[in-house]
């Protein structure tokens, strides 16, 4: 009976694992950078050392268990110490540890290399999205999870890259030293791409740095690695690495887009245009906390639908969206969203889900508030 059960469990386990062998890796990815390869070989080195020690130690243990069973008539000896042996098995592990520490130290020093970089990217963690800013290029954007909620709720089949796809990936050139500066707007996040062996915490108010030099073009995926609240599992990192020429073209296009967005601020926007744009912004940026129907998750995330105090006070509404609320999860959007998106989302919030204030906020109005003098 017992054997049957053991067997059944084993079969389930092996069947499960075999299916997996076809689907994906069991091990740390080798990655596409020099550092990730040294980390991988370090990992494998320590792993095999552990395996060898394990075989020797467990071998000795199971030999003793098998050989000295009382049921086989074993009589107990009475020794209880042996100084030479004890000194031996204290020093041998020490030597093995030194052998491990040497390559580990070398790799760690390499990770802390601070030589000049070709591109600097400021990575800001937000609840729950990443913001990438190409320093000195004037290009900055949010990167949001793009997996539809129907897939998460099980109402639609899941895509191949379920939970690991974003609306706008971080684009980087290959064969260039890229320096990442990480920080956070709210709680601690951790930016992690296994293929680069880069994981760095993003601390509110502080700045950390890491670097990489990607060797192969491709799309690399990772996730936030530090618990950052409700949607911690839903803020993936996607990096699109491309050749320098392609990267330059992409960057130029981004700048172009930013310029044309700036131009559209000045024109008069119609209500339905703002509502359409606002719904898009709301669903990618605001819905994670305030929920799809504006019902919120009180007490942490206030409801917007039917929030009479807010609807009565347009100035406060605009102020909160622009500047955030200190000591809460509400961030300031004045530096991260453009005036069109801000105007659109406020208009949307004031006219959706039964909030029929009829208010239309023009991007030019937001722009005017943000410019001094």
């Amino acid at each position, binding site marked *: 009976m017992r054997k049957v059960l053991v067997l059944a469990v084993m079969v389930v386990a092996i069947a499960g694992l075999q299916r997996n062998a076809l689907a994906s890796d069991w091990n740390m990815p080798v990655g596409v950078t020099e550092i990730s390869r040294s980390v991988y070989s370090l990992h494998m080195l320590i792993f095999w050392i552990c395996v060898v020690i394990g075989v020797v130690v467990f071998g000795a243990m199971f030999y003793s268990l098998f050989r000295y069973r009382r049921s086989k008539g074993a009589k107990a000896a009475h020794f209880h110490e042996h100084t030479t042996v004890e000194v031996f098995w204290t020093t041998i592990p020490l030597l093995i540890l030194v052998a491990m520490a040497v390559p580990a130290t070398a790799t760690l020093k390499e990770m802390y290399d601070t030589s000049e970089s070709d591109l*600097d990217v400021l990575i800001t963690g937000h609840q729950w999205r990443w913001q990438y800013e190409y320093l000195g290029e004037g290009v900055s954007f949010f990167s949001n999870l793009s997996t539809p909620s129907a897939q998460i709720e099980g109402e639609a089949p899941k895509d191949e890259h379920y939970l690991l796809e974003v609306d706008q990936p971080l684009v980087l050139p290959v064969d260039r030293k890229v320096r990442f*500066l990480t920080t956070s*707007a709210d709680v601690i996040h951790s930016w992690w791409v296994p293929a680069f062996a880069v994981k760095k915490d993003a601390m509110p108010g502080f700045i*950390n740095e890491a670097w990489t030099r990607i060797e192969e073009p491709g799309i690399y995926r990772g996730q936030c690695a530090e618990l950052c609240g409700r949607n911690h599992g839903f803020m993936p990192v996607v990096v699109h690495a491309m050749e320098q020429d392609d990267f330059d073209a992409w960057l130029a296009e981004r700048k172009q887009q930013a310029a044309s967005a700036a131009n559209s601020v000045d024109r008069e926007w119609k209500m339905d245009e703002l509502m359409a744009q606002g719904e898009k912004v709301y669903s990618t940026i605001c819905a994670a906390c305030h929920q799809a129907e504006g019902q919120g998750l009180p007490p942490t995330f206030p409801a917007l639908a039917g929030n009479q*105090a807010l609807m009565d006070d347009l100035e406060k509404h605009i102020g909160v969206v622009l500047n955030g*609320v200190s000591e809460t999860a509400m*961030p300031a959007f*004045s530096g991260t969203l453009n005036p069109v998106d801000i105007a659109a989302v406020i208009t949307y919030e004031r006219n959706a889900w039964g909030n029929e204030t009829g208010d239309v906020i023009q991007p030019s109005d937001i722009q005017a508030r943000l410019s*001094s003098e």
Partner: protein
Amino acid sequence: MTPVQRTVTKTVIALIGMVCFTIALVPLYDVFCQITGLNGKVASQAQPIISEEVDTSRYVTVQFITRTGSGLPWRLEPLDRQVRVHPGQSYKVLFAFTNYGDEARRGRAVPSVSPSEASLHLRKVTCFCFQEQRLEAGEHLRLPVVFQLTTDLPESVHTVTLAYTLYPAANNPTLGERAMPAQGGDA
């Protein structure tokens, strides 16, 4: 005293010692950070410039990053995003503060330096981050940072990033929006 009482007394003294040690850890940590540059912390008071020979053989890029935290309608921008400096030389950079809100507010800029190895070698004579700043509604202000990188900055450091994050100053009398989440929660 019985032996048990003696042991308990000693243990309680050790316990009180650990409580005091814990409390002392907070200031000790700050001291430790400033001595070792741990966590990219820099001195929060003005330091005199060390007069030393300028190392003209070497350039270091100093990069400025500014961010605004939640709850403060301010914008902070460096006039130069980055400067190339010689270790030993002192430099002045200007930062533009704007309060685009409609009331006077006080804010505080929290500095952070990366790589942390560099924070020991960054000396600031003048910095708006040493004290809170107050800006009237719509006020625009330029404030300087005067700094020096000492010549003993490790050779391996080529770029120093100096980040400032603006936060509303504590005990801000005009923190009216604090009431906001509570109201929203009731709705």
